[in-house]
Structures are given as C-alpha cells and as structure tokens.
C-alpha cells in the first residue's frame, strides 16, 4: 500500500516535471507568461487602493487584509493550476472520450488525468501570492499558515473542479455548468466575505466553497483558531474523498469515442 502510494507520488511529480519542461520549451513565452500574470494581478492593488481611499472599511476588511485575501486567492489558484490543470478540462476529456490512455495505465486514473497538464501563468499567480504575503503581512508563522492554506485551498479548488467536471458523465453539456460554477467561485474569491449576506453567504460556505478555500483561511491568518483549522482540514479530506467517489462512479458511464486525438 505504502509502496503503491510512493510510486503514484513519483509518477505525479514526474508528470508535473514533464509538464513544466514542455512549458519551458519556449523560454520567451514561459517567462513572459509568468511576468505578465504577476503584473496583471498587481493592477488590482490600485483598484483596492482607490476603494480604501474612499472608505476605510469594506466588509470588515482593511487594505492589508484584502491584500492577504488576494494573495491567498492567487497562490491557491496558482498551486491548483500548476499541479492539476487538467482537472479544469475534465468535461472535454469525458465528452470527447480522451480518458482512454489513462485507463490502460496501472495507476490511479483521476490522478493521472488531472496531473497531465500545467498552466505556466499559474506560476506567476503562485509567486504573486508569496510576494503579497511577504510585503503586507510577513512573519514565519504567517508564511507557514499561508503555505498550508494555499495547499488546502488548492486541494478544495481542484476537488470542486473534479466534482463539477464529473457532471459531464451524466449531463452532455455538463461543461457549461462546470465552467459557470468555476468562474462564480473565482469571482467571489477576490472580494471580502463581509459584503455578502443571507443566502449568498450561505452558498459561499456550502455549494460554492469559497468560504473554505479563502475566507476562513484569511481569517485564520489574521487571527488563528485551532477549531476552524480542524474544520478546514476535515472539509478538505471530505471533499477529496467525495471528488474521487463521484469521478469513479461516473467513470462506469464513460463511453470513450473514436475521435482522433493527441496528447499535447
């Protein structure tokens, strides 16, 4: 069991390594992608500076708090898209029958699939996140917490992408639902949760788990609470199991296809 997990981990890391090697084939595009993503994220600092100039407190957040929120959102997104980019393309793979090559390998299908692609600009997101935490709220503890929450956030975000992507096993146009839910999640993740009330707030802590990916971790960086940490870790484990369960349940309905395809 332990050896199998070790072998699986080795293949996963090798897959990520090869993905990054692919991205580095074009050095100029690789560096430009990363740099521009950092600059792109940085432009939002100006927007928030203007807003905080007009109002000191937005949804219970101050300028530094919003920056932590942005930093965590960027690094969470970055980490997920560096390691598990293909989780976001799951509907395409399911609908167009592109899971075949993973199904004939003696490894976990889901891990093989989701780790088979990477997004270069996501490296920019991850770096931006760490830059922000170092500039606006640097301490060793904060850095460690930031790393931990980036990992839990990336895992929840990926699991959410798998859950919504797996809908395509049952629904032909599941890719639309999956895409919409994912963009809703991303948009909400860069605003203070205090501005959302009632049913929307409930949704953000349940159906669209931005609360557990971003809001609760940010609150814990600002004020640590062990009970919330346990809750967060428990939820992370639960949603990962749920994602595996739903994917494998759906895989029984996989119908493959005879479309020409290439692994690029």
């Amino acid at each position, binding site marked *: 069991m332990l050896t199998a997990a070790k072998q699986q981990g080795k*293949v996963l890391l090798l*897959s990520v390594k090869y993905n990054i090697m692919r991205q580095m084939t074009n050095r100029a595009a690789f560096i430009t992608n990363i740099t521009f993503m950092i600059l792109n994220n940085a432009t939002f600092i100006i927007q928030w500076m203007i807003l905080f100039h007009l109002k000191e407190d937005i949804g219970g957040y101050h300028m530094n708090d919003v920056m932590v929120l942005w930093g965590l959102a960027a690094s969470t997104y970055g980490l997920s898209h560096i390691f598990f980019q293909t989780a976001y393309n799951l509907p395409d793979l399911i609908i167009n029958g592109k899971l075949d090559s993973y*199904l004939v390998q003696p490894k976990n299908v889901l891990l093989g699939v989701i780790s088979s692609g990477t997004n270069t600009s996501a490296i920019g997101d991850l770096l931006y996140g760490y830059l922000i935490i170092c500039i606006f709220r640097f301490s060793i503890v904060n850095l460690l917490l930031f790393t931990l929450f980036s990992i839990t956030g990336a895992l929840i975000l990926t699991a959410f992408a798998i859950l919504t992507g797996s809908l395509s096993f049952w629904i032909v146009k599941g890719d639309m639902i999956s895409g919409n839910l994912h963009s809703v999640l991303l948009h909400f993740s860069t605003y203070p949760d205090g501005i959302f009330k009632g049913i929307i707030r409930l949704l953000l802590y349940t159906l669209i788990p931005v609360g557990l990916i971003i809001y609760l971790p940010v609150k814990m960086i600002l004020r640590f609470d062990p009970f919330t940490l346990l809750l967060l870790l428990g939820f992370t484990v639960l949603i990962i199991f749920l994602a595996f369960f739903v994917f494998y349940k759906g895989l029984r309905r996989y119908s493959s296809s005879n479309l020409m395809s290439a692994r*690029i």
Partner: protein
Amino acid sequence: MKAIQVKNLSKTFKVKVKEKGFRGSMSSIIKPRYKSILAVDNISFEVEQGEILAFIGPNGAGKSTTIKMLTGILYPNNGEVSVMNINPCAKRKQLAYKIGTVFGQKEQLWTHLTPYDNFKFFGAIYDLADTVIEERINELKKTFELEEFINTPVRNLSLGQRIRCEIVASLIHKPEVLFLDEPTIGLDPVVKENIRELIKKMNREYQTTVFLTSHDVGDIEKLCKRIIIVNHGRIVLDDSMEHLKYHYLNKKIVEVKMKETVDFTAEEGITVLKSKGGNLKLAIDTTKKKINDALRLIDADNMIDINISNVPLENIITEIYRENKVLL
C-alpha cells in the same frame, strides 16, 4: 493457456435522438428522447497465448468497443471477460501491467517530449527501476531502430516514426498481450511493412499475444493466422487465415488499359466487371484460373497500363455478412 477469454459479451450505448431543425432542438430540451445502440451483441471467443489474431470488421462493427472492454476502458453490460486470467473491470490496474495498447488514432505519447523522455515516463508508470528502464530502452531502440530520432521531440517525427515509438512505449513493461487498434492507419506501404515486421519479430522474440484490428488486408494477411470478423456487433466469422484465403480471397481484380478493345467474356474464371473502350476491369477467380494464366491472355504489346489488386476487405466482409448471418 488462454490469453483472452470472452463469453457472451455485450455492450449497449444510450444515444440521444433529436428531431431535425430548431423545433427538434426545442423539443429535445423539453422532452429528450434516447435510443439504445447495441454495439457488441453477445460475442464469445478465446485467444491462445502467443497467437496473433486479426479482429476485423467494417466501421461501427464493434471492434474498438470490444478492445476497450478487453482493456478495461469500458464496462460491459453483460458477459464475462478474462485477459491473462484477470477481469479487466474488477482489476484494471493489475491487468495494465500485463497488457500494452496502441490506438492508431489516439496518441499516448507526450508530443512535446522526446521518445526517450516518454519511455522514461512510461517506465515509471509501470514501476520499473531506472536501470531497468535504461536497459529496456536500449534493447527496444535497437529492435525498432530508433537511434536516429530517439532524442527528437515526438511532434517533429513522421507518422511512421511516431507509431514505432507508440509501439515501443506500449512494450516498455514487457506486456504479455498487445492490443493494436489500427496501428498502420495513414502509413505509407514501406513503413507499414516495417511495422508488420516489427510486430512479427516481437511476437517471435517475446511470445507476445497480439490482438490486432485493421482495415488493411496486408496487415491481416502478413501477420495473422486466425481471423475474427465482426459486423453489427456480432461475430460473423471465426476461422483460420488459410481457410479465409481459400474461400474468400480467391479473387483478384485486374484493371487494364489496352490500345484496342479486347473481349474476355468467353474466358472461364474471368468476369468482366467494366469495359469501356480499351479500359477493362476484370475479376479473376484464382480457383478456376491462375493469375499468370489470366495475364498471358493479355497482349503485352497492346497494353498501356495494368493494375492488379485484391478484393477490398470491406467487400469480403460484406460478402461474408450477406452470405451468412453467423458463420461459426
């Protein structure tokens, strides 16, 4: 020992039915309708270890669906499958160590990486130690003559080179059964011949069982001793190649362009399929007239061009299917 055992295997796909036009699209949103398509219909067969079997049929006959059920990609609706005594549905990972797959229409290699890096990756997938992977790459590199392009990214390789690499990647873990789904699709005759030689060599040297689907009569004739023909999801013929050749590949098509019109209608064993001026299309029944005897009837001085070919596989399949619903 049996490498593959299939008993009463069936697979049904549910397909959405849509009426034509915009109205059809609207009604399919409100009340979607589905129909079931029986892709594989209650088939049974066995394959011996070390055998090279051709599993052929026209498009949509159920070949790929069967292969996909044998390799654990698809779940059957009914029936039993056992490959090297492993049930592909229940023990997919365990089976993967024993089988190799090449889908001519689907690449398994990472196109941006070199074949060498790809082989290293596939070796790691099959839990092989680095030294073992290196040894295996060196061995296969020589057998499949990859020296020239082993360090060139796959995307820059020709189709023939790529298919060779696909086969090597599928052999890295020394599989006992190799599934080849149209491995020579889109290849030129020279490369096709190379690939066939390599498959034969691999079967001879490693005693690998080969389960081959192809539309190419050459692949089947040159590689396989046994053939299974499927159509509409059912096995319509399961026989030796020798028997098939004797009964069905006994016709040659001769297309000849003459300076003047020639009449062959009276010749026994020759059927004139088309005759327009000096252009003739003849079917030679080789059981009644040897091909060299038929050619002797053609005046070489009067001939401008000639082409001799086998009856297309699709025609044979259609003929078999028309003649016999099930020919077992």
